[in-house]
């Protein structure tokens, strides 16, 4: 049967298997994406693309190549290669005209392809990733043998779901075979590490090995997907994309409270929030309609922390607008990288060098994000405030009052108490005498000093709110309308510490400059410090009994140092910004103004869509977006297999890698969006249920030769554990791990002097109790000095979004797992556990191996372990003092436990322990 099949294949293949001396094989039409575009990218686009348009000739857009260049000649004349200037310039011998200029000449084959392509009509084709995702046909696995119904073996029997059909077909094309399913212990360890980030327990392995029912594996998968550890594992992935950190970044890199966003991600994964919803909440949660007391649902606002993970620069002398812009640019680039798998950053300065995206579309897209109220101020406004105890009572009293006397005002007042917006940050004040923006975003005024708040809309305002304080006694700040000596709007007695004051102003309307002047004769050299000001309607119900108390509650709540976290908040009306193109990416050189829009490369936004972040977020997760579905399923695939179907998970453009299984990618994307309704759990289940995923990961000479990186999946994934997993596994297998979830990030032990950032008194204070043993995802992340063993195992600094952690293999990693006290404590605990499970050293070592790999140890490996155990034992018997030195975590001190600890240290460093097999 095999022979007959092979013969059939050869017969079919003959017509296309022949050589042409130039170009594409005869009989096959030139494929623009596969054949032509790579030649253009390699030889032409550097000078005739998005960056340069030498001689007014470009091949970036279809229309460009058909238009005459500076010479008046047309680069590409459809159907006539000989008339095409491009071909003439490639073929000419005149060194002044020869193309590529100063570059390697094209070879015969390349010239042949270009000529054939032009002669066939120079058909332009959209790059595969920008075409709408259609559901592909699932390949049939019916070979000739099966056609006759004689056999039901081979790939058809091996396959468990559609994924396997795509994979088996490719394997056949590549001359490779599938592998059988991994043994149960290996498979359970793999799927547990993949779904929950943790190894299974011994009992789980036993139960699975003993469960002979046909759906034993599926039951295990379902259980893992329900485990709370699932959310923690996938949050680790998402944190690199969200560039989550517990510090602000840049030089001073001070702390920031962001952990509620991390907890939001854990919860979202655990409740299997549909991925489209998850996306919308993070990009535009503040704009979603669900509200309570006029304020968006708190979780939705917390979700917007995603884009407040941008860095804030507190260095002296920096221009806040420059770094606000840097954060804006980062939001644009991150959104494109995470959801669209496109390197958008280059379009900041010029059109995309290789993909058809013009320069101004970058800024049209940036316009969606340009209205958030953050301005790189030191204290990172806007922040969502979490009131507790008395403060929360105050807030409720104010809300109840407003509901009673002017319900229409509720939204504005609740919003101000929750996010303190809209307000004017003091760095926008214009300098007068004896006044300046103090080093970090505060405004300072001294006696006889003045400043101006430009163009404030005073219509409807009868109060000024100001965050103000000084050390000077009896300082008085006066607000004047329009001129320094203009009518007095308000007079404020400056409090002796930072306070939010509420003061009445004379009513007026329209936009005005407001002049501040300070009288502070008692301490003329003391600064009066202003952080922000706001002009708004007074609280309603003036004159009613209890009104003064409510005003005081309002001011007190705003003054109190509540816990808070940075969030996105949209500026509207006077607080909305215009967006301009930055000429060559320079934020100081503004080009034409642009309105929010998405690049034409992809499907347009629906006509009725709101042109704000919410509309954008909905567009990103719409069925018509050609990139999102593919990019996201590819990310999850990469996490499981160690390599994406598109290897460059961050770049689906024409410079990225081609997909190894394009139809599978599209099938997964369509299934994810349509059948699973964006359920990540359903997607992951489909993948891990496949026979492809369940294969044994062992390789052999043939596989190494034909497919060293396992691109075609003829075996299961074998990948080193991630930084978090290496740590979590050591803690879990030794029994140290804490399963406590959520809350502020923790500081497990790390060597001294890791934290040395300038200008910050912050220090690493080792967490107490079980917080020392929390999962890696909860470790405090300082951008300029991340937890050292994490970075050693390839975790990024999280200054910017990073799609992939490239796995390295270095001696510094060996030093961590050999010598870091975290792993020594795990070794000692593991050794104690081994002792309780076996009487003889041999039994104990067998147990240790099983606790980490869930498999029996081979005799030859056991012999190696026995030898190291015996050698260590005799050393410790001779030098009992060393026993006390190595055993520092538990009560028992014996040469036997010391030798077993050394053996456990060996076990924790084994390749198959730090690797997912």
């Amino acid at each position, binding site marked *: 049967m095999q022979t007959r099949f092979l013969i059939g294949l050869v017969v079919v293949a003959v017509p296309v298997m022949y050589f042409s001396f130039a170009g594409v094989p005869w009989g096959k039409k030139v494929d623009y994406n596969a054949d032509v575009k790579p030649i253009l990218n390699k030889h032409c686009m550097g000078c005739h693309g998005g960056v340069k348009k030498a001689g007014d000739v470009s091949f970036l857009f279809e229309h460009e190549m058909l238009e005459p260049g500076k010479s008046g000649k047309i680069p590409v004349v459809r159907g006539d290669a000989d008339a095409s200037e491009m071909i003439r310039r490639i073929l000419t011998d005149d060194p002044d005209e020869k193309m590529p200029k100063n570059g390697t000449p094209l070879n015969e084959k390349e010239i042949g392809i270009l000529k054939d392509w032009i002669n066939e009509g120079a058909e332009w084709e959209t790059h595969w990733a920008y075409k709408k995702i259609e559901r592909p046909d699932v390949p049939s696995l019916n070979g000739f043998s099966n056609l006759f119904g004689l056999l039901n073996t081979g790939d058809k029997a091996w396959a468990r779901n559609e994924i396997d059909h795509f994979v088996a077909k490719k394997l056949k094309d590549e001359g490779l075979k599938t592998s059988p399913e991994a043994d149960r212990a290996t498979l359970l360890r793999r799927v547990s590490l993949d779904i929950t980030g943790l190894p299974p327990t011994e009992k789980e392995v036993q139960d699975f090995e003993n469960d002979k029912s046909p759906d034993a594996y599926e039951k295990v998968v379902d259980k893992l997907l329900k485990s709370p550890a699932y959310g923690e594992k996938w949050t680790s992935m998402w944190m690199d994309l969200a560039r989550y950190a517990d510090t602000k970044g840049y030089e001073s890199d001070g702390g920031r409270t962001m952990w509620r966003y991390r907890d939001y991600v854990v919860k979202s994964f655990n409740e299997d929030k549909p991925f489209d919803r998850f996306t919308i909440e993070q990009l535009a949660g503040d704009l979603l309609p669900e509200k309570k007391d006029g304020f968006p649902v708190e979780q939705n606002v917390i979700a917007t922390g995603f884009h407040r993970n941008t860095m804030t620069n507190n260095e002296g002398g920096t221009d806040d607008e420059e770094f606000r812009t840097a954060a804006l640019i980062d939001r644009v680039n991150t959104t494109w990288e995470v959801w669209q798998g496109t390197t958008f950053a280059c379009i900041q300065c010029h059109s995309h060098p290789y993909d058809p995206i013009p320069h101004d579309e970058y800024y049209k897209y940036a316009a969606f994000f340009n209205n958030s109220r953050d301005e790189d101020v030191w204290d990172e406004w806007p922040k969502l405030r979490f009131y507790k105890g008395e403060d929360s009572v105050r807030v409720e009293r104010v809300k109840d009052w407003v509901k009673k006397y002017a319900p229409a005002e509720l939204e504005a007042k609740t919003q101000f108490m929750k996010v303190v917006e809209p307000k004017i940050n003091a760095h926008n004040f214009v300098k007068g005498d004896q006044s300046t923006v103090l080093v970090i975003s505060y405004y300072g005024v001294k006696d006889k000093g003045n400043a101006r708040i430009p163009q404030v809309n005073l219509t409807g305002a009868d109060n000024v709110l100001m965050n103000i304080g000084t050390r000077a006694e009896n300082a008085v700040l006066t607000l004047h309308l329009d001129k320094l000596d203009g009518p007095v709007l308000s007079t404020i007695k400056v409090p002796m510490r930072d306070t939010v004051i509420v003061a009445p102003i004379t009513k007026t309307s329209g936009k005005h400059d407001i002049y501040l002047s300070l009288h502070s004769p008692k301490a003329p050299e003391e600064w009066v410090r202003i952080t922000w000001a706001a002009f708004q309607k007074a609280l309603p119900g003036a004159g009613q009994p209890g009104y003064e108390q409510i005003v005081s509650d309002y001011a007190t709540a705003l003054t109190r140092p509540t816990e808070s976290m940075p969030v996105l908040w949209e500026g509207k009306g006077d607080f909305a910004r215009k967006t301009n193109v930055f000429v060559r990416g320079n934020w100081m050189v503004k080009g034409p103004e642009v309105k929010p829009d998405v690049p034409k490369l992809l499907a347009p936004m629906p006509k009725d869509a709101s042109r704000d972040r919410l509309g954008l977020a909905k567009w990103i997760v719409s069925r018509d977006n050609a990139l999102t579905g593919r990019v996201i399923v590819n990310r999850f695939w990469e996490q499981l297999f160690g390599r994406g179907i598109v290897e460059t998970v961050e770049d689906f453009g024409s410079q990225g890698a081609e997909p190894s299984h394009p139809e599978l990618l599209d099938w997964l994307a369509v299934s994810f969006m349509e059948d699973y309704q964006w359920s990540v759990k359903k997607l992951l289940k489909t993948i891990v249920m496949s026979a492809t995923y369940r294969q044994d990961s062992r390789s052999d000479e043939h596989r190494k030769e034909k497919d060293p990186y396992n691109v075609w999946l003829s075996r299961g994934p074998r990948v080193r554990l991630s930084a978090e997993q290496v740590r979590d596994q050591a803690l879990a297998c030794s029994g140290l791990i804490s399963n406590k979830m959520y809350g502020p990030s923790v500081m497990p032990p790390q060597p001294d002097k890791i934290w*040395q950032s300038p200008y910050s008194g912050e220090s690493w204070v080792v967490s107490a109790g079980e917080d020392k043993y929390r999962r890696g995802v909860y470790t405090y992340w300082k951008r300029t000095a991340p937890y050292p063993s994490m970075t050693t195992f390839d975790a990024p600094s999280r200054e910017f979004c990073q799609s992939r952690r490239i796995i390295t293999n*270095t001696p510094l990693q060996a030093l961590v797992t050999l010598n870091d006290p975290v792993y020594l404590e795990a070794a000692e605990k593991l050794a104690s556990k081994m002792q309780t499970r076996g009487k003889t050293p041999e039994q104990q070592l067998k147990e240790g191996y099983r606790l980490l790999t869930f498999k029996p140890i081979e005799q030859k490996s056991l012999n190696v372990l026995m030898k190291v155990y015996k050698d260590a034992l005799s050393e410790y018997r001779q030098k009992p003092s060393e026993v006390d030195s190595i055993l520092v975590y538990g009560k028992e001190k014996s040469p036997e436990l010391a030798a077993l600890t050394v053996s456990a240290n060996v076990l924790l460093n084994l390749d198959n322990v730090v690797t997912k097999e």
Partner: protein
Amino acid sequence: MEKLLKELQHAELHRQTRRHFLQSAGFGLGALGLGSLLGSCGSSKAGEVAANSESLAAGGIPQFAPKAKRVIYIHMAGAPSQLELFDYKPELVKYHGKDCPAEFLEGKKFAFIQGVPKMLGPQGKFAQYGQSGAWLSDYLPYLQTVADELTFLKAMHTDQFNHAPAQLLLHTGSPRLGRPSLGAWAVYGLGSENRNLPGFIVLASGGRQPDAGKSVYGSGFLPSVYQGVQCRTGGDPVLYVTDPNGMNRNIRKKTIEAINEINRQTYEEVQDPEILTRISQYEMAFRMQMSVPEVMDVAREPQFILDMYGVKAGEGSFGMNCLLARKLIENDVRFVQLFDWGWDGHGTNATDNVEGGLRSKCQISDKPIAALIKDLKMRGLLEETLVVFGAEFGRTPMQENRNGVVMPYMGRDHHLEAYTMWMAGGGVKQGYSHGETDELGYYGVKDRVHVHDLQATILHLMGFDHEKFTYPFQGRNFRLTDTEGKVVKQVIA
């Protein structure tokens, strides 16, 4: 925007860690103890070409015979004042206390200066030294004694006026994060000649790390194996390099043998080449545990050497780092980067100023720097070792007036238009001065050298054409000097 690790890096790593080991696995495990981290492309190829260190450069990189085989780069983070140390401006004495001329302020941006500051005359006493007649101030009594070894670049200039971006520009060619540093390029291009030590080692003093953090010695988009490894002067010199208490060398050796033996068995079973890499990296880790503390230990240095550097065994300091730099160079480490923190003389307090504060920083550093030059020369190492001294920018001829207020001490703000650096050894002229500033030391008026020019020159001395020494990333060939840089031929001997 900053994807530090990309497809090409991935491919590069594959090439080095996998394919390489696939190919060389046949040579037996002994030849594999090379270590891609420390070895870089050079030593990972060393299995094939170890005999000839000249040929260690990464394949395809254009190279000519290097004059500088090794580099010691001394960076005074914060930026010392060239007007107190190197750039003698007698005219500035006359202007002391007068308002800064308007032309120096129009359209300029400073980190802290506001309004119209006063000019500040030089605080040091200058004289000429050596046969070359180099101008140096009394802040640097020891450097005077090696003045004839130095080439001064007196009209350096940069684009960035804040520490972190200016440091990044100086070391990586770009003010933003994500590009490889000079040391990473050097090791990528030249490889390492020592199997037991990293090719690029960083030593920091002054109590703090450089403002821009690890990125100033990072590998950017080059494979992470090329990043600088910081050796610490307190605690373990490399993190976790010391065996735990109660685990002696003998036991540690046996544990590593056991790990590697079992891993070898696993390899036979599963045939994953990554296991072979792991085996070699454990061997390297074991050797590093010996070689790193050994090279970082000065106990065996004679007393006169310790005295010459002005250091005490067991005490970390800038001087100690100079001595360690010599030891590392002696052990064929390719690139040694020294950072010393605390040179930011704004005049805000008793240490951050250009009078007493700068004097005391010089007292700590002047002697060991001169000692390093003499020591290298004495050992015949200076000829092939380039020593570079400088900072991310210079300081203003004006006195700082932060927030428009006179500072309590004499201080100067960050200045990017003109400052001084010097180089010695490694193929540069001896006793030479290049470039001049105007009479107030504000602008360079002759032979200005941009930081990109300096980078081009250093690469040239190391045998690279900076325009051809590139690495493909995000569809473009990147180089250290970005799109700029000219080799300063006049300083080359």
